[in-house]
């Protein structure tokens, strides 16, 4: 007899009870509130109603600075990947956050670019392309670029349009296509170095595919989707399987088996106290009427 799939409602209550009094969630149980796990927890709670969002909303808004960008402490660098995630959260709960903070964040994200660079004999890629960097003054990497691209596409679908945002979307798509590994999938950075092909990873591939969900015409997207479908049975992490589930769903693929494997791995995330991973997993298990969090 097959094991039952862990359902979304099984432990959302646990996730809710792990919130800090500040309204945010830490990456791990007992740790201070951070932007990224708070956003994922908010996505995971999508199905639980909006009546008690106020304290969580307050945490994110308290992180928003004059620049429009969010950071937990002013002395720390702004993380652009997590700001893109915060924009998606604000769009998800637009009525609760209001348009002003959302537009300020959106405009700040449109303005930020990762550092470009000239050609290099070490990396066969177009270093001039600029997506998003993790932090100011550094190179454009796969994850922040995927999050930034996804956020701007969701914002565009929600009516936040500008030619500047369109240009960023276009360049970020070109960057992701440029960095795709030879046989599909994405490494966290480059596709090659020192004349050798680098290996793709599952979570980064799922993220990039999520950001490219409306570009299934692109060959790199097709071969990366094939890579993801072939590789997820070998994945052994809650976040990797959670992102894969979310991604495959957006690409209209079957997700029952991967969700079952995700359920098998969640006890490991539980044992590590990894609230970030649990929130991603719960988000992946949202009921069908709540699957539109990442729709572009």
């Amino acid at each position: 007899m097959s094991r039952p799939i862990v359902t979304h409602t099984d432990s959302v209550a646990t996730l809710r009870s792990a919130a800090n009094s500040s309204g945010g969630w830490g990456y791990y149980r007992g740790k201070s509130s951070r932007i990224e796990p708070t956003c994922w927890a908010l996505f995971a709670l999508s199905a639980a109603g909006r009546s008690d969002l106020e304290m969580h909303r307050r945490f994110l808004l308290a992180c928003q600075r004059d620049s429009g960008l969010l950071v937990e402490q002013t002395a720390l660098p702004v993380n652009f990947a997590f700001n893109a995630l915060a924009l998606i959260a604000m769009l998800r709960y637009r009525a609760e956050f209001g348009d002003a903070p959302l537009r300020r964040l959106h405009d700040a994200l449109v303005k930020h670019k990762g550092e470009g660079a000239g050609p290099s004999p070490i990396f066969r890629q177009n270093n001039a392309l600029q997506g998003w960097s993790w932090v100011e003054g550094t190179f454009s990497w796969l994850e922040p670029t995927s999050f930034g691209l996804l956020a701007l596409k969701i914002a565009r679908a929600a009516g936040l349009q500008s030619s500047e945002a369109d240009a960023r979307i276009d360049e970020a798509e070109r960057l992701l296509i440029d960095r795709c590994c030879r046989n599909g999938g994405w490494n966290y950075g480059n596709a090659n170095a020192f004349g050798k092909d680098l290996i793709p990873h599952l979570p980064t591939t799922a993220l990039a595919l999520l950001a490219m969900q409306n570009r299934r015409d692109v060959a790199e997207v097709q071969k990366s989707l094939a890579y993801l479908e072939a590789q997820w049975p070998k994945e052994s992490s809650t976040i990797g399987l959670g992102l894969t589930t979310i991604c495959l769903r957006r690409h209209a693929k079957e997700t029952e088996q991967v969700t079952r494997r995700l359920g098998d791995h969640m006890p490991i995330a539980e044992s590590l106290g990894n609230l970030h991973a649990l929130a991603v997993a719960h988000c992946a298990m949202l009921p069908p009427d709540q699957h539109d969090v990442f729709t572009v």
Partner: protein
Amino acid sequence: MSLPFKPSRRDLLKALPLIAAASGCRRPPYDRRAFAVPARSAVALLPAPNYSVDLADVIFRGLQLLQPDVRGRSVFLKPNVVEYEAGTVINTHALVVAGAAVALRRAGAREVVVGEGPGHRRDIEYLLTATGLYDQLKDLRLRFVDLNHDDVRIVSLKSRFTGLTELALPVELLAADFVVSVPKLKTHHWTGMTASMKNLFGVVPGAVYGWPKNLLHYRGIENSILDLTATVQPHFAIVDAIVSMEGDGPIMGTPRATGFLAMGADPVSVDATCARVMGFEPSKMGYLQNASGYLGNIAEARIDQRGEPLSRYRTRFEVMQSFSGLQVAGGA
């Protein structure tokens, strides 16, 4: 893979004030009075032909030879776990981490905690399970700290080779009484080699500075190694050189059986000894040469060899062409 391009003009421009300070004024970017290089440093080389031997026993013998005082102290083990691919030797072997934990408990440590902040794959659950470290942690009831996502505290850097004055570092690392760097011995395509000092890149929290700790690359990898070692000041090093990596390390290189563990309280002398094993001249390596001025010893004459003699393991690692100049002329 780490760097999009070689640190060059941009890095050079950023480093210019430091270069001027170092060469023009002859004033190094640290306060000499804050550091005390020991007159002599002891480094133990312990034979371990493979991972099946009782590594706790081997490491405990090393502790007996070197006598670090861990009694009643909270010990933080920092292995090198970067990314995983079957059949490669990228990471510190899980059995070395487990052996170190058992040996340190046997030596009287009050608590042993393991922590790492991988510089490439940020998904720690994947790395722990894929490398087998999760099973070891579970069996030994060891607590694990994800240094990429821990709470942080801003600390002043004790040297300023990078030009940075402070960094946010994980609170669990800062709270430990006794920090042990537990790296894998590998060649490194930006610095020549990586061992106990370069391993400290993993304490820099990715959730704050991003991956692959790109800020440190822009500030100069060798500069960052120096500032991190000066600031974290690891109390001890245990290097997994049972199977090392040569060639295009630290990810794409090839395994090289070397059959030993290197241990010592001076990470600079431990790394200098490992460099000699690999066939490098430590004084030709920028960060080791700079470290010898304030952090530890690299001169062979100042290092007391314990356990096996260096000559037993001295060899010549395959290196990328750009690092052939670091090699000792004539080979092993």
